[in-house]
């Protein structure tokens, strides 16, 4: 159920009816959010609904344990009931593997029961330790199995073949559950934050379920922190006209970016990446530029739509994109691009690895490893690994050159500053584009063919510059305005007549410039 479809609008309208009717009954409202989120997820893939329910039950217990508190019988019972409810989904006709799934759930139930029995008898410190390890291992195991099993099995087999050995493993056709990377990271952050004392463990499974599965951000983020989102389920929400108007504006803008910009320029990129060897240099460059804007509009469009929906519901989701293509350095880029992931990687990977506390060499290692794993987070492919390595490499290079420190010492305003910034932005934009080439290419051979084609230096004029410009120009105008007024959401502050015109432009664009068939978001694959 894509956000931009009538089906979703109908779903959201029904949810809002129940949501608004339960404004004074917080727990019931949280239950509605949770159930609605599960219904939303079931539209994607009913098979994996039980997975998210199971993982929620495990994270719930792990969270309480990570706080050091004893896990009460009531909490254990609720978690096991939750697990049972999740396993009941496997009885739905047409779903494969009822018996194995029930067996696995039963085993997990016994394991949780046993785990609770054991940790409740230990010291709070040990309980914390054991719960964090169990929660993290369980979540990473789920992610590893569903996302990386085939990748590592294939790679191991290839390596064996290279060395002359036939390893003869069995490839499992593991299907990737939509959004697994996002909700897994959200749960991991929660368990670790509880252990660190940054948030209180949730003892209300309904509230926690709503937090883990909150449907606007369930399948593609932003990856929310418990300290920000979970707390909002503790207090009554306000439905206000301002929240509705600004939320709807944000949703509309996100939908415009996705449907009008990303979906219309994606054929340019697809055509080029499908057969780079038969394209002119101009077509390759336009194709790469198209993908550069496509991925931004696709992903940031989703984030904006998610934030808009949440705001209509009286909730706040974090900003995930902040005009990333005006970054002057790689570190600035990662402060502006997919902020929820980059800050997650910083807080739960880079800093635990030692951050910049162990001297330059360790800092470079940590940066590189963090970006490498950040690349691998996107998917089990060597192109994503190369993309992560490339970004790790340029982060190190800029650090070696002390660019960020030098910039901090320079005057921020004036003609020379503008010229300097423009140059740095241009360089960073080209580096980012190269990164997207690694990211989008089917394999590393495609990257080679692409670069060879670009180096030919011919056929610049015949490329579809006009089509790309037609769809990207309004985006650039809006972003320039956002930069100028230093406000990502300037629309509510415009005069009424200007607001009307912007709204009409967005609506007419959505109605008449959108491709006929809606297409899924790129980040749903991650």
């Amino acid at each position, binding site marked *: 159920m894509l956000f931009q479809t009538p089906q979703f609008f109908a779903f959201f309208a029904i949810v809002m009816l129940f949501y608004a009717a339960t404004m004074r009954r917080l727990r019931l409202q949280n239950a509605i959010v949770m159930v609605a989120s599960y219904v939303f997820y079931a539209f994607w893939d009913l098979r994996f609904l039980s997975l998210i329910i199971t993982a929620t039950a495990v994270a719930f217990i792990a969270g309480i344990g990570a706080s050091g508190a004893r896990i009460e019988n009531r909490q254990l019972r609720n978690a096991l009931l939750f697990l049972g409810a999740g396993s009941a989904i496997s009885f739905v006709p047409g779903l494969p593997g009822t018996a194995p799934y029930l067996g696995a759930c039963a085993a997990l139930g016994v394991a949780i029961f046993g785990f609770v029995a054991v940790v409740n008898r230990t010291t709070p410190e040990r309980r914390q330790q054991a719960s964090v390890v169990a929660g993290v291992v369980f979540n990473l195991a789920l992610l590893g199995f569903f996302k990386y099993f085939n990748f590592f099995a294939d790679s191991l087999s290839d390596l064996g073949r290279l060395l002359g050995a036939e390893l003869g493993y069995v490839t499992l056709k593991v299907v990737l559950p939509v959004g697994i990377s996002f909700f897994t990271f959200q749960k991991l952050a929660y368990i670790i934050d509880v252990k660190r004392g940054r948030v209180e463990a949730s003892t209300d499974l309904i509230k926690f379920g709503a937090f883990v599965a909150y449907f606007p951000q369930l399948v593609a983020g932003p990856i929310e922190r418990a300290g920000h989102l979970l707390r909002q389920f503790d207090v009554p929400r306000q439905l206000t006209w301002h929240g509705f108007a600004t939320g709807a504006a944000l949703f509309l803008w996100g939908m415009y970016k996705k449907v009008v910009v990303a979906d219309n320029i994606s054929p340019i990129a697809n055509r080029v990446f499908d057969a780079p060897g038969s394209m002119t240099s101009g077509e390759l460059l336009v194709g790469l530029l198209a993908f550069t804007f496509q991925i931004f509009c696709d992903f940031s469009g989703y984030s904006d739509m998610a934030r808009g929906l949440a705001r209509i519901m009286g909730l706040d989701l974090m900003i995930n994109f902040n005009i990333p293509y005006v970054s002057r350095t790689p570190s600035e880029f990662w402060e502006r691009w997919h902020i929820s992931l980059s800050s997650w990687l910083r807080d739960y990977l880079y800093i635990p690895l030692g951050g910049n506390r162990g001297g330059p060499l360790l800092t470079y290692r940590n940066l590189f490893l963090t970006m490498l794993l950040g690349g691998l987070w996107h998917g089990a492919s060597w192109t994503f690994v190369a993309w992560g390595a490339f970004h790790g490499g340029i982060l190190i290079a800029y650090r070696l050159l002390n660019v960020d420190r030098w910039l901090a010492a320079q005057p921020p305003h004036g003609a020379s500053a503008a010229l300097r910034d423009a140059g740095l932005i241009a360089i960073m934009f080209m580096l980012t584009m190269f990164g997207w080439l690694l990211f989008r290419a089917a394999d590393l051979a495609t990257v080679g063919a692409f670069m060879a084609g670009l180096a030919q230096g011919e056929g610049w004029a015949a490329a579809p510059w006009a089509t790309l410009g037609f769809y990207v120009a309004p985006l650039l105008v809006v972003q320039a305005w956002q930069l100028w007024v230093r406000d990502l959401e300037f629309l509510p502050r415009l005069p009424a007549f200007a607001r009307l015109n912007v709204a*009409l432009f967005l609506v007419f664009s959505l109605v*008449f410039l959108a491709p006929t068939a809606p297409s899924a978001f790129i980040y749903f694959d991650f």
Partner: protein
Amino acid sequence: MRPLRTLGIGIAIIGYALVFGEFFLRGFAPQPLVPRYVTGGPDGIRANIANVAFRQTTPEVDVVVRYNDHGMRDDRPAPPLAKAPGECRVALVGDSYFVGFESDFPHAFGKQLEDRLAAARTPARVLDFAVSGFGTAEDLIVIQRRVAAWRPDVVIMSWHASDPDDNVRSQLFRLVDGRLQPTGGAFLPGVSVSDRLMRVPGYRWLIENSHLYSALREKAGTALKGFLADLRGKAQAAEAPVASDPATEMPARAPGAGSAALDLALLTASRDASRAIGAQFLLFDIPIWSNRTKFYSAQVLYLGPLPGIASVSPQDAFTAVARPDLKLYHEQGHLHWTDAGNALAARVAADDIARRGWLAGCGDAVGRAKAVAATRLPVTP
């Protein structure tokens, strides 16, 4: 006063939005303005409005379409009903391809066919009974009720990819124990609304000039068609053909897209109805446009071989001349044939008629001379 003020502001905003939309579309997404000018006929199906001239404008063309005093696409008056001795006539029945939408009359399929036949020394007056949106069921009624009196020598019926669905949707005929039976019902979709709207001052201007109106009507029509298809449990039929055979890249008939048995029965009945009035019957395939160099036969896709029914397709001729820089279909309009497409299709039809010798015996020397002269009549200004 407050509610009145709010109402006033609301109306002003709606009015402004409409103006904004019109300019938006003209600037960013020009729409093809292809009005149809149809009304209800006495035979329960649609008919072209007689004696009208209207513009069709798209980013590619700006043409005037005229329907004569009998609602035929022709810049000239219709000939007398009674055939002159030695006069040959060819009747066209079908949809907007045969009407020649998005082409001016000299380049429309009918006139091109007439010119081709004259050049081949088998002159015939082409009488264009086609109506935009028609399927085979309506075409059959046209042959039975409208064409018969004109005593044509040849009836050419178009076969288009939308026909299978139209034939089911119109519910004009049904199969009972394998036999075709008229339901006795009428099929006049949207006619009562459009008739009423036609009486509204300014409406004609709107359909010929407003991009917003055209776009909204198109969207509403598509949505309604999809909704009706959904209701009949065959949502995919609305977008037929959809799937494709990966080996041949040939699109497959969409599941639920019409009924092959009904289509065949309608075609057979059309052939028999033509024979009953002394005319030969030719089924003319309208190839499905895929891109400038790839076309699919709607006949192969939906019907397959048709024993006992003469048929011809311009698909091979289209493919033979296809080039990336040659448009045979109007790609920014409603995918009707361009002048080049009309000329090529007409050549294929004329060559097929000549090959079959269908017009060889219908005219004597005097009649042929009259027919040749008739094709050169000056067009109505």
